[in-house]
């Protein structure tokens, strides 16, 4: 195609080019309008998530406290005990570190870090550090004289692992694994296994909650879409009212209803179905978590379903019936497929909300109704093992992403209709 054939604008530039240029400018200007949102997302979402990913694999509590020793121990071949020279560096670094009181760089910080992998070793570090200044050559012998635990190669292997800033140790812990004395990764003792079971339980409970929501929401959404305006409005208010009520109020209401001295138990005792001693435990356990979470998440299922059902003309079903389809057949072939986008959206919404739910299980979950987010909160707020909390959070994020990907494969995200 030669230049002559192109339509030119007044200033001699081909129209196509000029047009592309103008629209590109407009697009860029339009994009500027989204900058506040982009910035907001970067600051409130991308950076924190990045930090979480980072702190789940990064912990410099050894190299920051005893830097020279950290370099030396990494070179060690792991046979027997480290050399006398390494012991000397360790003692001198420890004596120096004892004087530091800067947050994140104290002996206590390092001791806590090692104690994660070798429980019971914390006081070994803090007590030795108090004496480090006075320890003299031969360092190996004198250190072991202070505490014979220093003669155990396992403690030096653990320090060697922890001396590297980038570590898989917190994922090892988060997957119910541990390092044995030789430094191999093995299954943790069954009595200390907690996270994998909890991940599976969280997935199971979330799936169950989603299923119950589907069963409860489908007929309600259908009624909402077919009832005359006056009734359907009333019904809609009944759906939305709890939705607008504070989460805490709704959860507390369930406590009042379900507890052993609560409304339901009182009624059952009054009617003689159960004896006063045989009151049913319905809250502070998994049942309580499921009941209240279903109630709280139900509107997230009803609303997408309703918005889809509202757009299905009743004439389709009538047409199918008039052509001789049995009601069940017509429903399966004509109505149900059209509601799928809403169903898919509701399912995804409820499931993903449920999997990361925190406050309701914390209030009514008791002991066996706690979900993985409660364990994450425990490590952030109580045990202060932020790296382990971050590792658990990252695993949860990955699980959700995998599920989302599977969902996309099976149903197609573009088919979702949220309303």
């Amino acid at each position: 195609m030669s230049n002559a054939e192109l339509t030119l604008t007044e200033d001699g530039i081909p129209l196509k080019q000029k047009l592309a240029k103008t629209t590109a400018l407009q697009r860029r200007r339009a994009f500027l309008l989204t900058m506040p949102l982009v910035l907001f997302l970067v600051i409130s979402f991308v950076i924190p998530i990045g930090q979480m990913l980072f702190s789940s694999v990064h912990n410099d509590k050894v190299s920051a406290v005893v830097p020279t020793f950290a370099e030396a121990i990494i070179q060690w071949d792991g046979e027997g005990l480290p050399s006398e020279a390494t012991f000397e560096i360790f003692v001198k670094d420890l004596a120096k570190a004892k004087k530091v009181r800067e947050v994140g760089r104290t002996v206590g910080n390092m001791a806590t870090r090692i104690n994660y992998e070798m429980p019971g070793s914390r006081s070994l570090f803090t007590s030795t550090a108090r004496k480090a200044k006075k320890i003299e050559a031969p360092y190996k012998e004198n250190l072991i004289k202070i505490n014979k635990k220093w003669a155990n190669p396992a403690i030096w292997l653990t320090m060697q692992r922890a001396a590297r800033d980038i570590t898989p140790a917190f994922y090892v812990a988060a997957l119910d694994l541990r390092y044995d004395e030789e430094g191999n990764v093995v299954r943790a003792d069954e009595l200390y296994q907690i996270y994998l079971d909890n991940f599976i339980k969280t997935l199971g409970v979330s799936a169950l909650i989603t299923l119950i929501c589907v069963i409860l929401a489908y007929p309600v959404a259908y009624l909402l879409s077919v009832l005359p305006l006056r009734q359907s409005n009333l019904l809609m208010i009944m759906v939305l009212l709890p939705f607008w009520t504070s989460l805490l109020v709704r959860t507390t209401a369930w406590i009042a209803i379900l507890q052993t001295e609560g409304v339901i138990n009182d009624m059952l005792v009054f009617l003689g179905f159960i004896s006063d001693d045989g009151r049913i435990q319905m809250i502070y356990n998994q049942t309580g978590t499921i009941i209240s979470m279903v109630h709280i998440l139900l509107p997230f299922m009803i609303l997408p379903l309703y918005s889809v059902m509202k757009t299905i003309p009743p004439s389709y079903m009538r047409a199918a019936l008039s052509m001789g389809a049995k009601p069940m057949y017509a429903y399966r072939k004509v109505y149900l497929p059209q509601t799928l986008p809403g169903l898919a959206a509701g399912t995804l919404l409820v499931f993903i909300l449920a999997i990361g739910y925190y406050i309701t299980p914390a209030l009514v979950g008791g002991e066996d109704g706690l979900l993985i987010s409660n364990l994450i909160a425990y490590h952030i707020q109580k045990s202060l093992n932020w790296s382990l909390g971050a590792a658990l959070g990252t695993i949860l994020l990955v699980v959700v992403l995998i599920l989302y990907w599977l969902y996309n494969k099976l149903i197609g995200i573009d088919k979702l209709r949220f309303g």
Partner: protein
Amino acid sequence: MKKLINKTLMATAISAAVAAGSVQAEDITVVSWGGAYTKSQVEAYHKPWMAQTGNTVVSEDYSGGLAEIKAQVEAGNVTWNLVDVELSDAVRGCDEGILEVIDSSILPAGADGTPAADDFLPGTVHECAVGNIVWSTIVAYDGSKTSGVNSMADFFDTAKIPGKRGLRKGPKPNLEMALMADGVAPGDVYEVLSTDAGIDRAFAKLDSIRDSVVWWEAGAQPPQLLADGEVVMTTAYNGRIFNAVAAEGKPFEIMWDGQVWDLDLWVIPKGAKNMEATLDFIKFSTGTQALADQASWISYGPVRKSSAPLVSSYHNQPDLKMAPHMPTAPANFGGALQNDFEFWADNQDQLNERFNAWLSK
């Protein structure tokens, strides 16, 4: 209600300060465990100190642990001036550099002239912390409904005394109590707990009452559980039970056998403001008189020897002598065990994990 009280206090203090013509009034935020315990501190420490100095104390509640201190220090935004913590947290926080070092030479001598170093009970003044009380976890029951609770073994014996038991949700000090109930002498508890077999033994004992346990988390819960009849007996902080008896007339009894006692200490988060006023408050509140006054509001023992003779009776009931209700009273102290902060600093992560795993199965 609490806020209202605090506001009223503040308002009173401010007007007092204005009336005194003080110009250098400072605010400090003092954080403690809430309820009857905080009230005792407000009455014995905050009010007199505010009246004396013209400064203002803002009282805040928390539920223990180092998480909030750590968060404030790491964010560089420290709003708390002084926090009441357990010994294990004081030691751990000091080790990790999130607490200020407190120079113990600032502590005044006792009212009887004993130098502070001799006046404070051994182990109650630490590099970063100054003790104020001795408290204890004990077993309490409703004396009008339950009887025959004489030893820790009875607490774990559901055949002898059927019904639900309240226990603190966490391994500490349940493991210690379980071992004592299983026949371990208080002096040997931590030695036994240092072995895997000992930990198994403690958990096996807990397992034996597991179905009868109601777990509590905040110190205010156990008296409530007893009052509601949710449990026949419960572990509790001794001062909370005393308060329910003295202030609310509840028929609760304390079983002192196997009590696990600990300290509460003042610590200053690193980078806290108004250091001068805060240190002055520490000096005032751990003085002989203030500690003795505090003990007239709740049955936690003062850490100064010189305070003991000044402790008399409950603040509004002259007939209710405080001494027999203290954890350290000779009659109560026989089967007592001191919480071993070093054991818990070493093992709490691992034991918490095992406890959580045990709970969820």
